[in-house]
Structures are given as C-alpha cells and as structure tokens.
C-alpha cells in the first residue's frame, strides 16, 4: 500500500509541475469567467454609435427618430430597474425564487422585452424619463433604497444620430453622397457631435434613403414579375442598388440596421393599410395579439407540467458535465503518456521495478492521476460556483439553488459514478499505450485512433439532449467506451431502466477487464525495448501466465 501511495504522490507532484496541468486547471474557469463578464464588459465598453440619416424622400426620418427614441426609453427603464434592484432596501432574496416555477426564458433580449411591454405608453414615458420626470421618479424611489445608494447615472445611449458633416450637400445623388461620406465611415475623418472633448466623433453608419424610394417598394408578386420580365437576368438589378442604403464598416453589429429596417417597413405597411382603406391603428392592435404558448412535459406531475427554468438547467447541465469529463480525460492523457515514457526511455523503470511490483507501479500511477483529476474537478466546480456567486451578488444563493436543482434530478450521483468509471477506463488505456511505447512519437501514433474514438462524444454531445432516448443515444450507451459520456448526457431524460442498469454493469465489467488487461500489458510492455508489439502479440500477453 505504501509504495502505491508514494508513487501516486510523486506522480501527482510531477504533474502539478507541468504547464499542461495549470493550463487545464485555469482554462475552464477563465472560459466561464470570460463568457459571463466579457459580455457585460463589452456591453459597457461599447461606445455610443453615431450615425447619420439622409432621407431625401422625407418620408421616414420621423419614424426612424421615433423608433430610436423608443429604444432609448427602454434602455433607460432597464437601467432604472437595475438600479433599483441593486440598491433596494429589501432585495428579494434569490432563494425565494423557485427555479422550478420560473418559466424558461425566451430568447428575446431584456431591452426588447421592456420595449414591447411599454409600447403603448410612449408619450407618458417620454415625459416621465425627461430631466424633471426622472428626478421625480428617483425622488420617489429614494425611501425604498439603501442609505448609501449612489446617484443614478443615465446609461450611455447605444446609438445617437449626428448631423451630416458640414459641407456635404444632403441633396446630392446617393452615389455621390456615399462617396463624400466614405472617409468618415472609414474612420479617416471625424464628424462633429456627441460629448467627446473636441466635439469630434467617429461615424459608425450612414443611412441613405433615396427620394424615389416609394417606387422601389417590392412585394413578392412584383419580384416574380420582375424576374419573368428580365428573363432571369436578375444581376443587373443588384448592381443598381435602388433602395435604402445602409453604409457601415462594422458588419457584426447589425442592431441599427435591423431597427431602421423595421421602422421603415412598418411605416410603409401603415401607409399601405391606409391606402387600402384599412385602419392602421386597428391593424397594429391586431398584430399585437399574442397566443399564449406553454411548454409542457408529460413526465411531470399534474399542475407542474410547465417547463421551468429548473427543467432547462437539468436538460443542459449534463452537456456541461460531459464536456468536463472529456476535458479531464484529454488533459491527463498527455501526462500519463509523458511520465510513463520518461520512465521507460530513461530506464528508471528498472530501479522502480526492483523496488515495487509492476502492479503497484500501475496502481500508483492510476491513483496519482486520479488525484490530478480530482483536483481539477474540485477547482473547476469551486470556481464555477464562486463565479456564479460573484456574478449574482454577494448574498445570492444561486449556486446553492443550482446544486439543489441538480440534486433533485438525481444527477450528481450519476455524474460522480460515470466520471469515476470513465476516468479510470481511459487512464488505463493511456497507461497501456505508454507502457508499450519507447518514444513519444510512437505513442502519438497509437494515440491517433484513440483520439478519433474520443471525438465521438464531443460531436454527439449537443445532439443527444435533443433526442436522449433515440436510437443513436441508445446504441452509444451500450458501447462501454462511450457509456460514461452518453449516459451522462441522457441522465435527465429518464432513460429506460434497462439502459441505466445494463450499461452500468457492462461499463463496470469492461473497466475491470480493461484494468486487468492493462496490468498484464503494462507488466510486459514496461520492460520492452524496440518496436511496439503487434496486436496479435498483445493477445498472447493476455493469455500467457
């Protein structure tokens, strides 16, 4: 027992000294951290985007202004809401929220949701959010806030319209206008406006609306007709660009473009309704009617069928665990190979084998590498929970709730079992490979197929939750090398009992067999020099005493 511990200890210490270990250790928290905070940071640090609008038709300027104002109101409302909940005296405790009851969120962003909800109060809001209105609101809010709450700061607007740079004639033909604006859009020159010290800001986008825009309106029927008329020569139309022109170098941020598109389109629709004798107001009302739609799950008891936040977590958490297991196995593979091959190529192995049996050496290595895995998982889980805690505020109980949710689904024990078995199985394989190779190069050749095998769970990881009890998932579950990944993946979808018990027994048996076989291969391989053995030779090793 003592030699096993000593070897495990050295193995662990050795690995803890490698770069790979530390990279593996911190990569995961950093990715999580980045995905949570960088997004916020990006949002905060994105500068206000300045744009110009030249509407030669004079038809849409106003609706665009309105739409941007509505967006700004929503932004402000959101900021006020956040301000209030941040500094509220009696903050609702997160622990009072029951994730089981909270409906799974839609994909719509928060600002848009606010905008939708407050659509019909445009004017009132405009008043409320003006200088004086806002002061009054804040004054009313004051008693509800904690004593030392800082003053409310208006968030920077995301978009701001600026005037056309001086000396550019708004009535020029669009092509020439665009030519004039080009240096500004490319950042070579700046436009006046905004709060910048020198009053000069970068131009983000230019929206150019031609005077004859109304002749360019398309409807599906027109397009077809045009195609027929042109006899399939549709390319000519594209080069002429007869429509609204949206100029911007930034192709990724399309919010402004989308918003202008929506504003203009709905204005066109409104006019069209009028022209066709329909009541635009009523049409708008009709379009706001929503059909309530609930996601329900027949597996849940009556009254609680609605798909909740907790259900979503339970559905997707396994993917996270599959990924963790995969990363863990991937990062130990190198360590196991390196260490075993170092011992072999330096012939340290002889000294070791004069002190311990091959079995003890193998066990020591497995225990050592298991400790590495344990540390990794602990650090990962710890950092995940800490980051969640930090990002949800100091008193937040969110991580605990997350754990509760996972626990209630019986996921945690499943993860532990599958993680342990999967880890053991793959460590054994890597150890066997290391023991029959003399150089890292040889080992890498052998690792190729293993890596190929290991790609499968990563590829199927995202599909399996969508059809957790489908044929593919079931087949993969019965292949021991994939059982830990796939069964973890399926854990929250109530897989049939046969699958759960059957694959577990198979996995345990297979792992035990593998370790036994690896023990034999290890004992012979470890002293071997020269070419790695052929598969046939390996089988004779297994059979021989």
């Amino acid at each position: 027992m003592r030699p096993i511990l000593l070897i495990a200890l050295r193995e662990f210490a050795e690995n803890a000294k490698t770069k790979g270990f530390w990279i593996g250790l911190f990569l995961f928290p950093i990715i999580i951290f980045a995905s949570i905070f960088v997004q916020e940071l990006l949002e905060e640090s994105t500068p206000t985007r300045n744009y110009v609008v030249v509407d030669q038709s004079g038809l849409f300027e106003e609706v665009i202004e309105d739409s941007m104002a509505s967006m700004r109101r929503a932004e402000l409302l959101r900021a006020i809401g956040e301000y209030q909940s941040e500094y509220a005296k009696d903050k609702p405790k997160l622990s009072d929220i029951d994730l089981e009851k909270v409906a799974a969120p839609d994909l719509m962003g928060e600002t848009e949701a606010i905008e939708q909800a407050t659509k019909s109060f445009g004017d009132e809001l405009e008043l409320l959010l003006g200088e004086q209105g806002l002061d009054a609101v804040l004054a009313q809010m004051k008693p509800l806030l904690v004593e030392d709450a800082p003053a409310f700061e208006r968030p920077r607007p995301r978009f701001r319209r600026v005037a056309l740079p001086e000396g550019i004639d708004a009535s020029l033909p669009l092509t020439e206008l665009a030519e004039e604006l080009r240096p500004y859009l490319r950042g070579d020159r700046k436009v006046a406006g905004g709060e910048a010290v020198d009053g000069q800001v970068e131009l983000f986008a230019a929206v150019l609306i031609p005077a004859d825009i109304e002749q360019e309106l398309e409807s599906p029927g027109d397009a077809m007709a045009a195609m027929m008329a042109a006899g399939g020569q549709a390319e000519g139309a594209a080069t002429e660009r007869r429509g609204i022109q949206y100029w911007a170098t930034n192709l990724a941020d399309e919010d402004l473009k989308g918003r202008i598109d929506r504003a203009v389109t709905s204005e066109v629709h409104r006019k069209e309704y009028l022209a066709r004798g329909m009541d635009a107001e009523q049409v708008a009302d009709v379009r706001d009617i929503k059909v309530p739609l609930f996601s329900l799950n027949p597996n849940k008891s009556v009254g609680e069928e609605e798909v909740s936040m907790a259900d979503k977590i339970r559905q997707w958490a396994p993917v996270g665990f599959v990924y963790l297991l995969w990363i863990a196995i991937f990062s130990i593979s190198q360590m196991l190979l390196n260490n075993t091959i170092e011992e072999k190529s330096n012939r340290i192995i002889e000294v070791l084998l004069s002190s311990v049996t091959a079995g003890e050496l193998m066990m020591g290595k497995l225990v050592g590498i298991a400790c590495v895995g344990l540390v990794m998982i602990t650090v990962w889980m710890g950092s995940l929970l800490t980051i969640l805690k930090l990002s949800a505020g100091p008193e937040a109980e969110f991580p605990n709730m997350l754990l509760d949710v996972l626990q209630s689904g019986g996921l945690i024990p499943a993860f532990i079992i599958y993680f342990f078995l999967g880890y053991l199985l793959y460590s054994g394989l890597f150890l066997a490979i290391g023991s029959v190779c003399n150089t890292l190069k040889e080992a890498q050749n052998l690792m190729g197929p293993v890596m190929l095998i290991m790609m499968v769970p990563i590829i199927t990881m995202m599909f399996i939750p969508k059809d957790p009890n489908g044929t593919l998932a079931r087949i993969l579950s019965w292949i021991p090398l994939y059982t830990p990944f796939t069964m973890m993946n399926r854990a929250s979808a109530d897989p049939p009992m046969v699958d759960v018990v059957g694959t577990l027994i198979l996995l345990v048996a297979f792992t035990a067999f593998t370790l036994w076989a690896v023990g034999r291969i290890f004992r012979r391989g470890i002293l071997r020099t020269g070419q790695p053995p052929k598969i046939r030779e390996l089988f004779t090793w297994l059979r021989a005493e």
Partner: protein
Amino acid sequence: MSDSVLELQNVCKTYGDFTAVDDVSFTIPAGMVYGFLGPNGAGKTTTIRMILEIIKPTKGSISVFGKPSALAVRERIGYLPEEKGLYKKMRAWSIIAYFATLKGMDRKAAKRRAYELLERYGLKDFADAKTEALSKGMGQKVQVLASIAHDPELIILDEPFSGLDPVNQEVMEEVIRDLKERGRTVLFSTHVMSHAERICDRILLIAGGKKVLDDTIDGARKTIPRRVRVASADPLDFLAELDAVVGLVPAETIVAIGSEKLLTFDAQLSDKGEPIDVVKACLERGVHLERFDYSPPSLHEVFVELVGDKAKEASFR
C-alpha cells in the same frame, strides 16, 4: 560471514532460440565484494536483472537472503542499472530521497540522508539542482547514491564506472570500499579490470552465458601459466629449448632503444621451471638482457586468455 547473501542454482534464460544465460550457479557470502566480469553480451546484465526479479529466469532458482523473491527483501537490496537515467525534472536530493522511501525509508530520514550523501561524495552544490542540469557523470553519481541511500546490505551495481572521469572513478571505488568496510555485500559488473583487481575479494567471470571462473583474484591469476617477460637486442629463440620454459611468445611490439631494436618475448614457465633458470641461460650464452620482468599475470591477461576468443566471437554474432 558464512551465510550466503545470494545464491543462484542452474539459472537459465532464453530469448527464443538464443540462450543468454546458460546454467549459471554461484553463491555470494555476506561481506564480500564480487566483481562480475565477462565480455559484451556475456549475460551479466541479464543475470543481474534476474536476481532483482525484473525478469524471470527460464529455469533454475535464485534466492536472496534466503528468500526466493528479491522484492520480498527489497529494502535490503540496492541496485544501479546498466542504463543510467533519472527523472529530469526532479531535484538531486529529492530523487535520492524518493528511491529511498520506495525502499521503505522514512521520508524525513531519507531527505536527511540524501543531503548527507551528496555532501560526502562531492555533490553538495548540486543537491538542489534539477537532474537535467547535471552532467552525465554527475547524474550517474546521484543514481549510485540513490541506490545506496537506504543503506542496503546487498548492493548490485551494473557497470558503475562507465562514463566517469578518472577522479570520479576513484570516488566510485571509495564508495565501494566504504560499503565493504561497513560489512555490506557488493556485486558489480565492469569491463575495467584494474578496478576489479583493486577492490574485489573475488571475481565471477562468465562468457557466452556460461560461468567460466569464480575465484579470488590470486586464484584467478593462477589459472594461467607463470611467465617472465624478457627483452633483448640479441636473438632469444634458444629460450624455447630450455626445460624450464614451455612456450615462447612474442609480446608487445618491437621497442627501439637508441639505434638497436629490442625483441620482447613472454617465456611461459613449466611447473618446475623458475625465473632464475631463464636468467642463468642468458648469462651462460652472454646474451645481454635489456629487460627482465617476473610478475604475476594481470587480471587483464587472465581475461584475455580465458575469454578472449569468446569475446571476439560475440562481437561478430
């Protein structure tokens, strides 16, 4: 002194059709320093690995401290393998301490002992260096120290002198002598006869997997005929006719002193022949002897005489 530390009985090892060790038996009593000699490919390393249970003999039995398994008494054995190597990223002291703890030593004691040994054998400054920063010879010394750190009773060293400079070869000899003084049993293989000559109590010579000789140094010398070495500018052929001489072989190359060319011969003496008979014969004939040398044969000569052919054969195998 009389109980045997190591006993091999009819040990064989075959690799496929090839017999690497062929029916070797020997016994090493406690407190002895044993030199394990033999040409390349003789089977020394194979034998040593079998003793340490790293590989299993095909036939025969080995007992170490009366036990059939070396692992059962691992804390009493120290081993330096033929191919030297250390963990590159570990520090000198920690590698010594690690191997000592694997052999059952307490961790604290092992650390203390590691520093002690490094200081004693001139590696004090490198105690905290990573082994990849050591030269090959220094690394080898560290490894030797690692093999004796747990103060084993039986120390088996496979070519401990290879790769060491003359000074460190002396240090190595000192290490072995120290061990001997403290009553330890040492078995070491080497290709340098002078080391064996200086520090061994007995030598074990094998060739082609078979035991050729197991004797004291003196005993080994007696295995080849006594001879005198003579050199002269005059012809010496007449010596072959003497009753005291059984053979006359030209030895060494022709050496010139001044303008004269000297011929050197080894005159092998018969059982009854004495060196003085050769001198007398020369005086009678008025032959002027430039050199007369009567000393027991060196181990080197014994080696070449006994296994020289085998060694050449092996090199062409």
